[in-house]
C-alpha cells in the first residue's frame, strides 16, 4: 500500500515538474525534437557528404571537359556539349541496346522460373523449407567471385557446363565457347544472372502466394470454378503486386549490373556484352573522359529514376484494385 502511494507521489511530482516546457527539457534531458534531429542528423550528413555532394559534383563535371588523369589542366566549361556527344554516340546506343536485351531476357526467365518454383514450393511438400534454402544460396554470394568461377565452368574443353551440355545433347564440348563466341556470350551472362537471381523473384512471389487466404479458394471451389480459372482469377491477380515489386528491385539492380558481368566476360567479345555500367567504367577509368562519362552517368541515373517512378505509380494502381 505504502509503495503505491509513493509511486503516485512520484508520478504527481513528475507531472508537476513536466508542466513548464523549458524546465522539463532541462530536467528530463533533451526534448523529443532535439533527439529526433540528433538521431537523424549524422545519417543525413553522411549521405550528403558521400552521396549528394558527389552527385552534384558529377552534374558539374558533366558540363566540363575535365579529364581526371590530367591534374594540371583546369576544367573548362563546355555547356551541354557532353550530353550532345553522349546522345549521338553510336557506342552508347549500342551499350543501351545490350543492357535492354539483358534486362528483358533475365527478367522474363526469372519471372517464369521464379513464379513456377514458388508455386511448386507453396504446395507445402515435405522438406520444402530445406530445398528453398538451398535454392536461395546463390543470390547471397559475391557476384564477382562467383562470376569469376563461372568462367571456369564455361571453359570449352574442361568446363563442367560444356561437359553437361555435351553429355545431354551429344554436341562435342570443345565445339562451342560460351564466353568467346559473339552469339553465345550474351546468353552466357543471362544464364548466370538467372541462376543467381531467380531465387529472389521466387522468395517474394512465395510471400505473395502465402498471403492469399485459403477461404478465397474454398469459396471458388463452392462456386465450382475450375483450377485454371482459380489460378487466373485468384492466384495471379493477388500475387501480381508482389511480383511487380520483385521485378522493380531486380530491374534496377540489373540495369546497374557490373560485377558479375565484368568478371564473366568484361564486356566482350568485342562489345557484345558491354552493359551500360561496363561502358561507363571504360569511359571514366580507362579512357579518363571524366566530363563525358559524368554526362552519361547523369543520363543513366535520370533514366532509372524516371522509369522507377512511373513503375511505382503502376504498382500502386495494381495494389489499389
Amino acid at each position, binding site marked *: 500500500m505504502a509503495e503505491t502511494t509513493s509511486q503516485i507521489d512520484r508520478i504527481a511530482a*513528475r507531472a508537476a515538474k513536466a508542466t513548464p516546457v523549458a524546465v522539463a527539457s532541462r530536467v*528530463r*534531458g*533533451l526534448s523529443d*525534437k532535439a*533527439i*529526433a534531429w540528433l*538521431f*537523424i542528423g*549524422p*545519417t543525413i550528413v*553522411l*549521405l550528403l*557528404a*558521400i*552521396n549528394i*555532394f*558527389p*552527385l552534384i*559534383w558529377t552534374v558539374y563535371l558533366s558540363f566540363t571537359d575535365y579529364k581526371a588523369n590530367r591534374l594540371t589542366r583546369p576544367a573548362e566549361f563546355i555547356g551541354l556539349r557532353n550530353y550532345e556527344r553522349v546522345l549521338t554516340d553510336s557506342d552508347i546506343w549500342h551499350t543501351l541496346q545490350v543492357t535492354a536485351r539483358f534486362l528483358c531476357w533475365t527478367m522474363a526467365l526469372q519471372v517464369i522460373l521464379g513464379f513456377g*518454383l514458388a508455386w511448386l*514450393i507453396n*504446395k507445402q*511438400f515435405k522438406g520444402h523449407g530445406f*530445398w528453398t*534454402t538451398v*535454392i*536461395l544460396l*546463390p543470390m*547471397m*554470394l*559475391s*557476384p*564477382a*567471385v562467383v562470376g*569469376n568461377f563461372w568462367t*571456369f565452368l564455361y*571453359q570449352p*574443353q*574442361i*568446363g563442367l557446363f560444356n*561437359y553437361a551440355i555435351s553429355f545431354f545433347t551429344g554436341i562435342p*564440348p570443345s565445339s562451342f565457347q560460351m564466353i568467346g563466341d559473339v552469339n553465345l556470350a550474351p546468353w552466357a551472362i543471362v544464364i548466370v544472372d538467372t541462376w543467381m537471381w531467380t531465387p529472389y523473384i521466387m*522468395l517474394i512471389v512465395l510471400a505473395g502466394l502465402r498471403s492469399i487466404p485459403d477461404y478465397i*479458394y474454398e469459396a471458388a471451389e463452392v462456386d465450382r470454378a475450375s483450377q485454371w480459372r482459380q489460378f487466373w482469377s485468384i492466384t495471379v491477380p493477388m500475387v501480381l503486386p508482389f511480383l511487380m*515489386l520483385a521485378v522493380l*528491385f531486380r530491374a*534496377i539492380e540489373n540495369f*546497374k549490373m*557490373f*560485377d558479375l558481368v*565484368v*568478371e564473366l566476360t568484361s564486356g566482350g567479345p568485342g562489345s557484345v556484352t558491354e552493359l551500360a555500367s561496363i561502358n*561507363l567504367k571504360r569511359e*571514366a*577509368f580507362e579512357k579518363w573522359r*571524366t566530363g563525358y562519362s*559524368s554526362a552519361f552517368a547523369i543520363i*543513366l541515373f535520370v533514366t532509372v529514376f524516371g522509369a*522507377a517512378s512511373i513503375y511505382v505509380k503502376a504498382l500502386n494502381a495494381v495494389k489499389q484494385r
Partner: protein
Amino acid sequence: MSATTAHSVVEPSRWTKRIATLVVILYAAITIVPLVWILMTGFKTPPDSISYPPKVVFEPTLEGYVNLFTTRTRQTPEYMATLPPPETWYDELVRSRDMVIAGPSRFGQRFMNSVIIGFGSTFLSVFLGTLAAYAFSRFKVPLKDDLMFFILSTRMMPPIAVAIPIFLMYRTVGLSDTHLGMILLYTAVNISLAVWLLKGFIDEIPREYEEAALIDGYTRLQAFIKVVLPQAATGIAATAIFCLIFSWNEYAFALLLTSGTAQTAPPFIPTIIGEGGLDWPAVAAGATLFLIPIVVFTILLRKHLLRGITFGAVRK
C-alpha cells in the same frame, strides 16, 4: 500450413505434391552444382582440376589452399637436393612439385581487409541506422516521407557513376585506398538499407512499452536504450548481417578505389595466378573460404531474408 483437414479443397493432392517435390529438388540440385564444384575444385591438384572428362572422384589434396596462402618459386633438382629436409607438411607438398615456398601470398591480408572494412562499415551503418530509424519511427519529423525516399533513392545510382567524383574527392582528401575511406563509403551505401529495415522492426515494437518507461521516470534516451534496443535486438542483428553481406560482396568500388593497402578479397580472388595461367584450385580455395561465412549467415538469416532483400517492403 494452415488449419486444413485432409479433405480440404485447398490441400494439394498427393500426386501434385510428388511432382512439386521432384521438380524443386531437381532445380535445387542444378543450382547447387556450381557451388559444390567450387568446393571440390579447391581440393584438387591443378592437373585434376582441368582434366577431361571433369573428375568427380579424385584424391583430395590441400595443394590449392597451400598455393592460395603462399608464393612459390620453381627450383632445379640440384638445388632441391641441397636443401635440408622439409619441416612442415606444406613445405613437403610444395617441394614435391619442385618448388620452394618464397613467402606468404597477399590473400591473408586481402581477407583481413574484407573483415576490417566489413565489420567497420556494418557497425557504423547499424549504429547510425538505428538512431535514424528510431527517430523516423517515433517522432514527428518534418518531410518524413520525403527524407525516407531520399535515403532510398541514393541506391538507384550506378556505383560507377558515384565512383567518379568519390575517386576525385578521396584523392583530394587523402582517403583513396584507405580502410577508413572504404568504411565510410560502404556505410553510406548500407545506411539506406539499415534505416528502412530497422524502421520496420522498430515500428513493430508497441509504443506502450516506452510510454510506460517514460511514466516510470526514464528519460527518452534511457527509454530508447533500456526498452527499445533490447526489443529490437533481433531486427538489429538481422540488419547487421545484411549490411555485412553487402560490404563483403561489394566489388565495383573496391576495384576502382583500392589497389593495395585497402583492397578487399572480391577484386583480388580473380587475380590469383599460378604457373601457366590461372591456378583454379587456388582460386576455388579462395572462393570457398570467402563464400562459406555467407552461406552460414544465409542459413541463420533465412526467416528475415525476405525483409532484407526488399528493404522491409515485404514482411511475412
